[in-house]
C-alpha cells in the first residue's frame, strides 16, 4: 500500500499499457470480453486520478507525487514524473475521457482487440506528456502518442470518401488524412527536437526545473553558436528556439495557419478517435505553451505576444467562418475546435504580454479552464455526431432536418452540449471564455475586440448546426421504413451523462476546479 501511494503517478501512467497486455491475451473472438476488459481497466486510472485529486495539496508550490529513476544515464535524462495544478487538471481530463471514448467504441467489431490496445497505448502517451518533468521524456511521450492515433484513423476511419491529390491521383480520404496528421506533426516537431538537443548539449541535463534556471541565467548578449563566420548571440538563439517550440505546439493546438491537418483528421477518424483527438490531443499543444514556452522564454513570449494574439484571433475568426460554411456536420464541429482553441491561445498570449499581473493570472485561469471545458464539450459534440452518423451513414447537413420529433432525447442532449460550446451562461464554456476575455481585454484590447466578433459567429455556426439537424421541415426519409431513425440508446446516454454533469457543475460552481488552477497559476507564473 505504501508502495502504491508513493508511486501513484507511475501507476496511472502505465496501467493502460498493462491493460493493453491483458487485452492482448484475450481470445480474438470474444468481443464482449475485450470491450469490457478494456473499459473497466480504463476506469482504474480514472479512480486513481480522483484519489490523486483528493490528496493533492493545492496550496503547496512545486510538483507533487514525484517519482524519479535513472532512464538514459549517458544523456543525463531520467524518468521523472510529477504533477502540479496545471498537469493535474489535464491528467483528470485524460483519464476521464478515455473510458468514455472506450465505451463509445463498443460498436467496433472489426479487429476490436487491436483497436482497444491502441487506445490504451494512446492514453499512456498522452498522460506521459502531462506528467513528464524531464524534457527528453516529454518528447518521447509527445511523439509516441502519434503512432496509435495514426493507425486508429488509418484503419478504423470512415471508409467512404476519396481525395484527389496532384495529377488526378485518387487516394482514400482516411489514408490522406492520417498521413497528413502524422507527417505534419512530426515535421512540426523537428524544430522542437533540435531545440531540445541544443538545450541538452548546453546544460548536460534534461531536467525541467534545472533547465528553467540555467536557460534564464545565460547572458543575453554573449555568443552561443557560429553561423558562417558570424556569432549568434544567446538572445538570437533563444528567439529561434522560441519559434521552434511555438511552431511545434501551434501545429498541435492548432493555430491558424497550421490547422489544416485538423479538419481532415477529425472528419476521417472513428468517433472515439475524434473525441480523444479534440478532447485531449489538442490540449497537448496548449499544455506545451504553458509548461515549456512561457517558463523557458518569458522575454521572447512577451515580445512576440502580439503576433501570437494575432494568430489566435485569426483562428477564432476564420475557425468560426469556416465552421459556418461547412456542409459536413463533423467538419463543422472540427472547425469549431479551431475556434475554441484560439481562445486558449489568446489567453496565453495575454498572459505572456502582461506576465506577473492580475490580468495575466485571470487569463491563464481562463485558458486552463477552457482547455478542460473544450475537452468536455468537443468530446461530447463529436460523440453526438458519431451517434447520428452510425444510424444514418451520412454527415451531410442537407440530408437531415426536423429530426427533433423523431429523437427528442438525442435532440435535447445535442442542444445542451451545443449550448455549452456556444458559451451560454450557466454552462462551463461561458466561465472560461469570460475569464479569458476579462484577462486579455486590458492587455490586448484590439485582438480581444476582434475575437468577440468571432464569438458572434460561434453562435451563428452552432445555431446553424442545430437548425439543420433538428429543426425545419422534417426529412421524411428518416421517419419510417428501414431508415427509421432510432433514439439514442442507454450506453450512449451513459457516455454523455458524465460530460453533461461536469458541463453543468463547472458552469454553476467552477470554484472547486478554479481553486486548484488558480493556485497553480499564481505559483508557476509569479
Amino acid at each position, binding site marked *: 500500500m505504501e508502495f502504491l501511494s508513493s508511486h501513484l503517478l507511475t501507476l496511472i501512467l502505465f496501467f493502460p499499457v498493462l491493460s493493453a497486455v491483458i487485452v492482448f491475451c484475450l481470445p480474438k473472438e470474444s468481443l464482449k470480453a475485450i470491450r469490457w476488459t478494456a473499459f473497466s481497466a480504463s476506469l482504474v486510472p480514472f479512480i486513481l486520478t480522483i484519489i490523486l485529486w483528493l490528496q493533492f495539496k493545492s496550496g503547496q508550490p512545486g510538483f507533487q507525487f514525484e517519482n524519479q529513476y*535513472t*532512464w*538514459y*544515464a*549517458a*544523456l543525463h535524462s531520467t524518468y521523472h514524473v510529477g504533477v502540479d495544478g496545471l498537469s493535474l487538471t489535464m491528467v483528470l481530463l485524460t483519464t476521464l475521457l478515455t473510458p468514455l471514448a472506450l465505451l463509445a467504441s463498443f460498436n467496433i467489431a472489426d479487429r476490436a482487440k487491436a483497436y482497444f490496445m491502441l487506445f490504451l497505448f494512446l492514453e499512456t502517451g498522452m498522460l506521459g506528456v502531462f506528467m513528464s518533468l524531464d524534457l*527528453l521524456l516529454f*518528447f*518521447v*511521450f*509527445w*511523439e*509516441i502518442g502519434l*503512432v496509435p492515433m*495514426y493507425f486508429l484513423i*488509418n*484503419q478504423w476511419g470512415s471508409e467512404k470518401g476519396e481525395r484527389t491529390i496532384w495529377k488526378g491521383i485518387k487516394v482514400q480520404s482516411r*489514408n490522406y488524412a492520417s*498521413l497528413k496528421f*502524422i*507527417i505534419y506533426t*512530426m*515535421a512540426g516537431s*523537428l524544430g522542437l*527536437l*533540435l531545440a531540445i*538537443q*541544443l538545450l*541538452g*548539449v548546453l546544460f548536460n541535463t534534461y531536467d525541467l526545473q534545472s533547465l528553467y534556471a540555467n536557460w534564464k541565467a545565460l547572458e543575453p548578449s554573449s555568443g552561443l*553558436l557560429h*553561423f558562417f563566420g558570424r556569432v549568434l548571440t544567446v538572445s538570437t538563439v533563444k528567439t529561434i528556439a522560441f519559434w521552434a517550440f511555438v511552431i511545434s505546439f501551434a501545429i498541435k493546438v492548432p493555430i491558424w495557419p497550421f490547422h489544416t491537418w485538423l479538419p481532415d483528421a477529425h472528419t476521417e477518424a472513428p468517433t472515439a478517435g475524434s473525441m480523444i483527438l479534440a478532447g485531449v490531443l489538442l490540449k497537448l499543444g496548449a499544455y506545451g505553451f504553458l509548461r515549456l514556452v512561457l517558463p523557458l522564454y518569458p522575454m521572447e513570449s512577451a515580445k512576440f505576444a502580439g503576433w501570437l494574439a494575432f494568430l489566435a484571433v485569426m483562428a477564432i475568426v476564420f475557425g468560426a467562418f469556416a465552421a459556418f460554411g461547412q456542409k459536413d456536420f463533423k467538419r463543422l464541429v472540427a472547425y469549431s475546435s479551431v475556434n475554441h482553441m484560439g481562445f486558449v491561445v489568446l489567453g496565453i498570449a495575454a498572459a505572456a504580454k502582461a506576465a506577473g499581473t492580475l490580468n495575466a493570472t485571470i487569463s491563464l485561469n481562463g485558458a486552463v479552464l477552457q482547455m478542460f471545458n473544450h475537452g468536455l464539450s468537443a468530446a461530447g459534440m463529436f460523440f453526438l455526431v458519431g451517434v447520428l452518423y452510425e444510424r444514418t451513414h451520412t454527415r451531410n447537413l442537407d440530408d437531415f432536418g426536423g429530426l427533433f420529433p423523431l429523437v427528442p432525447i438525442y435532440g435535447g442532449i445535442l442542444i445542451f452540449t451545443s449550448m455549452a460550446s456556444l458559451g451560454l451562461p450557466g454552462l462551463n464554456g461561458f466561465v472560461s471564455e469570460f475569464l479569458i476575455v476579462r484577462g486579455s481585454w486590458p492587455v490586448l484590447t484590439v485582438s480581444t475586440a476582434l475575437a468577440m466578433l468571432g464569438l458572434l459567429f460561434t453562435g451563428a455556426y452552432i445555431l446553424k448546426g442545430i437548425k439543420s439537424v433538428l429543426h425545419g421541415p422534417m426529412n421524411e426519409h428518416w421517419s419510417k421504413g428501414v431508415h427509421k431513425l432510432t433514439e439514442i440508446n442507454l450506453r450512449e446516454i451513459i457516455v454523455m451523462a458524465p460530460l453533461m454533469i461536469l458541463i453543468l457543475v463547472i458552469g454553476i460552481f467552477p470554484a472547486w476546479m478554479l481553486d486548484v488552477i488558480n493556485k497553480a497559476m499564481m505559483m508557476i507564473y509569479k
Partner: protein
Amino acid sequence: MQFPFLSVIVFIPMVSALVLLLFKPEQKKAIRITALTAALLALALSIWVYFAYDKAAAGYQFIEKYTWMPLMGISLHFGVDGLSVPLVLLTGIVMVTGVMISWGIEDRPREFFAFLFLLASGVFGVFVSLDLFMLFFFYEIAVFPMFLLIVIWGWIKTREYAAMKLTLYLFIGSVISLIGALVMFWTSGAHTFDMLILETVKFSPVFQKIWFLPVFLGFAILGGIFPFHNWSPDGHVAAPTAVSMFHAGVLMKLGAFAALRVGIMLLPEGAKFWSPLIMGLALVNIVYGAFIASVQTDFKYVIGFSSVSHMGLVMMGFATLKPEGLIGAGVQMFSHGVMTALFFAAVGMVYDRAHTRDIPKLGGMIKPLPMVAIGVIIGSLVSMGMPGFSGFVAEFPIFMGIWKTQWMVAVLAAISIVVTASYVLLVVRRVFFGKMPAEFEGHISPINVLDKISLILLMGLMVGIGVFPALMVPWVQSGVQHVLTLLGGV
C-alpha cells in the same frame, strides 16, 4: 587459464561448416538441425560474453593471444571492448535468425549453410581481432563467401551483376586499407601488427593526415558511405533472404567498425583533420539515401536504400568524435542491424509467398501474415527514430554529438527523419493494409514457428533497448571512453 570464449565463438561456425560438408546432400533435415545447433551455441556464448563483460573495468576483456607468425609480429590476438561486444551479440542473433528463416531452402542447403557459416566466422573474427593482420584475414573471409552465396542462391535476374559489383567494390576498398595498414606496420617501427601496441605509437601528424583517408574510406565502402554506396542496394536485393540479413545486418557494420578501429583509433590526428569531410559525406548518405528510398517501388530496394541512410548516421556519429556521437553510433550499429535483419526477413517472407516485391502489386498482407506486419511496423518505427524504440536511443545522441561539432549539419540531417517517416508509413500501408489483390487470395500461407520466433526475438530487442537504454548504452559507453582517450580526451 580462462575458457577461450572468443576463439570458440569465432571457430564454431567455421568448424560446423566443415562438419556440414560431411553430411550427404540428401540429409537435409540433419543438416538444418546441425546448423541451428551450431548457431544457437554461438549465440549462447555471445550472450554469455555480453553479460560477463565488466563495464566498470572497461577496456579489452576476454583477451587471448597465440603466436602465429612471430617473424612478422603477427599473432592470433582476440579481445572485446564495449563497442565490439554488442556487435558480437548482434552477429550471434542474426546467425540464429538467419538459419531459422532459411529453414525452407531446398536448393543445396548443405553448401548454403556452410558458406553462410564461413561468412559468420569471418564476421566474428573481425569484431574480436586485436591484430591488424588478423582483422584483414577475417575481413576477406567474410567478403568472399558473400560472392558465392549471391551468385548461386540469389535473385536470378541480377545476381551475377550484383555479386560481381559487390565483390569488386569491397576488394578494392580492402586493398586500399591494406596498403594503409602495411604502411603503418613499417612506419611504426614496432614491428608488430598488434593494434594494442599500434594504438600507443604516436604516428606523425602528417603521416596520419595522409593515410587516414584511404584507410577509413577503404573500410567505409563496406559501411556504405557515399559516394561508394551503390554496390549495397544491388547486393541486398540480389542476395537470398538470410544473406541479405547478414549483409545489411552485420556486414555493413563490419565496414563501419573496422573504419573506427583502424582508421579513427590508430590515426586519431588524421580523424580530427578529416572529420568535416566524413561528416559531409555522411550527411549526403543520410538525406540523399532517405530521398532515394522514398521513390523506390521494389520493397527490397526501399530497405536497401534506407540502410544507406541509416549507416550514414553511424558514420556521422563517428565523425563527430564526441562522446555522445560515438555512443549513438555504437548503439545505432546494433539497432540498425536488428532492424534491417527484421526488414529483410519480412521482405523474404512476403516474397516467398507473393512472388513479387513490387509495392503497387501488393496489399492486404496483414490478414494472412499478421506477425510479419507487426514486425515491419515496429521496424518502421525504429527506422523513423520514434521514441520508445531503439532507433531513437541511437539517433538522439548522434544528433547531440553533431550539435557539439557543427549544429547546421544537425538541422539538415533532421530532414531525413520526416522523409523516412513518410516513406516507411506509405510502404507499410501499401503492402500490409488495403485490399488484397485477388490473385493472392488463398495463396498466402501462414509463416511457421521458426519464423515467428525470429521475428519476436528481433522485435523484442528493438522495443527492449528503446524502453530501457540501460540494456545496451553502458557497454557502448565504456568502449567509447577508450576511443576518447586515444583522441586526446576530447
